[in-house]
């Protein structure tokens, strides 16, 4: 249909104008290149300011911590209090390692099912209840962790009369983990394409079936990553467990026994007047860092495998 378009004679090109435009754009380009180099240098500087302390920290951890954890009985013995005759007899931290595992296990059992269900609800519902739950979990995620400790102390230790115990500590950690799981689950579930839900509905599936059989599996990678982040955070917390676990000097998996925890041992040893106990802190810190690192690394590897399998 070219006959419908009126072709206009194009005027003679104005070479002066063209040269002028080129000159201006050359000038602007040079200025931008300079500015870009300057900004990249700033970024590199900021990166090194961030990275240097991190590497120093890791270096110090390994430098001082490795000799401690290689020391016989560090992983297997209970702690000992040094005395004037054997000032270096610190024993091990088996109780704290077991305590940390116990606490995160029970806390996960409490927090994961509730957190995932609430997260799915928040993502799928538009009710007022969902909106207020969202505000509550966002506020809780930012609350100081010592509050969870105080809450667990007054509620579990005192009101329920359960006493200083692994249960009380894992309750505090569960409350701490809950908002992290809720928020990450909601994000993961929202990320599932709407077309998948529609495909399920169009096959005659009821909405709850769509949530459980289609949306949840599709969001699983994100949900599990969130859960592991929550656990990693809980493992490193001192404040919430400080007031409630009782710092037990025994190896116990029972929920009602007082237990210890790695961060708590760091806190207690660091206060000690014995130099040998203070040195031990580095070993405990190293174990804690390796724990968290392995957890988050395995989460990442698992998630990327899962993505590739798609």
């Amino acid at each position, binding site marked *: 249909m070219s006959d419908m378009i009126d072709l206009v004679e194009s005027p003679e090109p104005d070479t002066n104008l063209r040269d002028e435009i080129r000159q201006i754009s050359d000038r602007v380009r040079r200025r931008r290149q300079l500015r870009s180099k300057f900004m990249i240098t700033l970024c590199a500087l900021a990166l090194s300011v961030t990275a240097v302390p991190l590497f120093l920290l890791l270096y110090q951890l390994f430098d001082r911590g490795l000799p401690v954890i290689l020391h016989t009985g560090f992983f297997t013995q209970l702690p000992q209090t040094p005395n004037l005759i054997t000032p270096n007899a610190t024993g091990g931290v088996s109780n704290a390692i077991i305590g940390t595992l116990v606490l995160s296990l029970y806390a996960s059992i409490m927090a994961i099912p509730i957190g995932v269900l609430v997260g799915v609800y928040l993502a799928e519902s538009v009710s007022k209840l969902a909106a207020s739950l969202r505000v509550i979990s966002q506020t809780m995620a930012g609350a100081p962790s010592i509050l969870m400790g105080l809450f667990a102390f007054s509620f579990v230790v005192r009101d329920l009369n359960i006493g200083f115990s692994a249960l009380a500590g894992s309750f505090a950690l569960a409350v701490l983990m809950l908002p992290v799981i809720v928020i990450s689950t909601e994000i993961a579930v929202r990320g599932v394409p709407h*077309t*998948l839900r529609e*495909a399920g*509905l*169009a*096959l005659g599936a*009821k909405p709850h079936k769509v949530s459980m059989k289609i949306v949840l599996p599709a969001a699983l990678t994100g949900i599990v990553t969130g859960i592991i982040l929550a656990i990693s955070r809980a493992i490193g917390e001192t404040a919430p467990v400080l007031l409630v676990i009782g710092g037990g000097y025994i190896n116990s998996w029972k929920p009602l026994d007082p237990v210890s925890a790695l961060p708590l041992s760091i806190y207690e040893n660091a206060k000690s007047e014995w130099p040998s106990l203070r040195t031990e802190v580095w070993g405990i810190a190293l174990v804690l860092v390796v724990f968290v690192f392995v957890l988050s690394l395995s989460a990442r590897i698992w998630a990327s495998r899962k993505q590739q*399998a798609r």
Partner: protein
Amino acid sequence: MDQEFMAQVETKVATPSETLERGAAAMQLKNVAVSFHGRTAVRDCTFDVTKNRVTSLIGPSGSGKTTLLRALNRLHDLTPGAKVSGQILLEGTDIYRGDITVTELRTRVGMVFQRPNPFPTMSIYENAVSGLRFNGVKKKSILDEAAETSLKSAALWDSVQGRLKVAASNLSGGEQQRLCIARALAMDPEVLLMDEPTSALDPIATLKIEDLMTELKKRVTVVIVTHNMQQAARISDDCAFLLMGEDRAGELIEFDTTEKIFNNPIDPRTLDYTLGRFG
């Protein structure tokens, strides 16, 4: 060419199309309109979807084709503010007010979407039988049979037979779309709604799906939305032409056999559109 075209239009308008002998209606639309938050998206849709025929919905973007299609299996139910008025009958039962639940309706009226959307966490087999599972079928012999039959009907069985346990996402786009067709067919629906099922596919995959539809209409009634005029002309028996009105709401301009719509329409706008004058 223009004069020739105008002359054509005038003669067409002068000859109104006569009513055709039709088979029984699988679905009947009576004055169907869909609105969102009080704003009408499509209205005045009255036509019959005849059994074992392919009915195409054509029209430019914004004419409400997809909106109308989605009303046929109540997919607007979950959209806040959506309202469907008029009557849509499936075998004489009003699907919005009659004695039929939304889940039952959707098992009888299946749907294939614009982009292939197999369930990514499920295998080919699990995708094919997912509808049956959602509706409580657990017996393995039934599921196996349904998987095989539906994959065969979707012309996919031969290429996936040996790898049924593989994730559906390993299939090509065209194969994924045929898996979605198989998934819908496994429910043995009476009507299959297809929303631009080939718009995300290459020409060869498109051709395969078009061939499939001609085969499928022997056992299922097909309603298809398409932007592709040639596709509508090639595969459909009946055709509804929709157009956006002055208030930006889509409306039905003309419904007839595809042959009439493309060669001998009553409304000049229909001819303009099928000849590619606009849209």
